[in-house]
């Protein structure tokens, strides 16, 4: 699954560690999601959407 996490994070000048702390997950989790190696659960996707004040669809897309 593709995502815009890296862009959204860069817009706020957050490091992966910053985002991980805000999400209460490990930095490896953020990295795995960002690189598309790990798809987050729905609750974590909602948490991301709330954090970036946008919708899940604006962050994730199911195109390969």
């Amino acid at each position, binding site marked *: 699954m593709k995502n815009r996490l890296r862009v959204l994070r860069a817009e706020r000048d957050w490091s992966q560690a910053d985002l991980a702390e805000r999400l209460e997950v*490990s930095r*490896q*989790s953020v990295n795995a999601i960002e690189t598309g190696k790990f798809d987050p659960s729905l609750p974590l996707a909602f948490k991301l959407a709330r954090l970036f004040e946008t919708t899940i669809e604006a962050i994730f897309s199911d195109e390969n």
Partner: protein
Amino acid sequence: MESKFSNSVNRRFHRRSLVVMVLYVLSLAVMSQAIDHLHPKGMALYLLALLPALPIVAAIVIIALYLSEQKDEFVRTLQIESMLWGVGATLTVTTIWGALEKFAHIRPMSLFLVYPLCCVFVFLARVVVKRRYR
């Protein structure tokens, strides 16, 4: 870097595991000394022989607790994936060994070694699984 919550879960897991490992070594020592010197029979022998198995059961419960307490879904997924590969490898090796033991009469493997063997496979699987997500 892991989250603060994940760190506390890991610390708790390592503390519990350390206690269980100490109990395991102690129970092995007590059991073998008691059997060698007291020569127990019947129920006493059974209970003594069971002693080192109890910390192993506790170790399995500790792993289950870790999985239920770990809120970082990615870390939990890595652990579960590693455990599945580890258990699969253990079942494969013990099944092959069992067949060779039964039909080719090779040296029997002690069932007591199955858990340590599984731990080794889970550890190796964890190294591979972590590399895959790097």
